[in-house]
């Protein structure tokens, strides 16, 4: 069994400008979703748990691309 800590340098898919734009847009979208979620009366605790679960689901799907 071996373990490693690797500084991952992914192949660049997007230019820095476009990647930065997508980052800001995604953060804004997430904040908007948070506003809507809390706005309909979901508690912060429930919202945190649900977001964690959706992130895990997305992470699970995307983990299939590991080498």
């Amino acid at each position, binding site marked *: *069994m*071996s*373990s*490693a*800590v*690797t*500084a*991952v*340098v*992914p*192949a*660049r*898919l*997007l230019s*820095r400008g476009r*990647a*930065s734009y*997508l*980052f800001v847009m*995604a*953060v*804004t*979208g*997430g*904040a*908007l*979703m*948070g*506003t809507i*979620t*809390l706005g309909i009366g979901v*508690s*912060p*605790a429930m*919202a*945190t*748990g649900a*977001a*964690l*679960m*959706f*992130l*895990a*689901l*997305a*992470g*699970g*799907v*995307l*983990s*299939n*691309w*590991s*080498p």
Partner: protein
Amino acid sequence: MVGTIGLAGCEEDCRGFVRKCSLLSIHLAGSIGGGAALGLMLGWSSGLAMAVEPTSTAVLLVPICAAYALSGLSLARLPQPSTGRQVPISWRRLPPPVLALHYGVPLGAGVFTRIFDGTVYAVLAGVVLTGDAVIGCVTLGAFGFGRGLFVFLAAGFGVRARDDVTPLVQAIAAHRTHARAAAGMALAAAAGFFALVGWTGTFTAPGW
């Protein structure tokens, strides 16, 4: 590990739709079980040591999600602690149902093989911070479900004969950088969500 499509599904044993679906179901169940078991243990054990209240959990997850989002979008370099190994090659000699289960459990747990992107770290940090066995079980169970479901759907619909496996795996693997970028965007959205929840939650204080 997209090559699981062949191993868990039908590369060695392609004897009909029902047989294939049975193997893929076993793999999916193992994947969910592996993730849920790890989440249960992690949530329970961290709950013995600490339990951060929900608002603080959300606040603490913001920098983790944001940092790995930048990494996923190739805007920053971050260390990715990971085992540098895959599942043992000797498992390929196991009978197909046992093989499917053996592949499902460690891959569903996510941390026993190579880690592809930062979502795993964010989710693990969230489970540890909540210190709740049920939340840990459901959250990492969802991770295993997502991982196994992709294999189930790809192999279920994309593989009709043994020769279909390699082209399908190669076609999917060609989009690795897109998948990393998608993970980065999911993490960025989570960072925004947690920031908003954390900021709002400072005015209320409900428990889990």
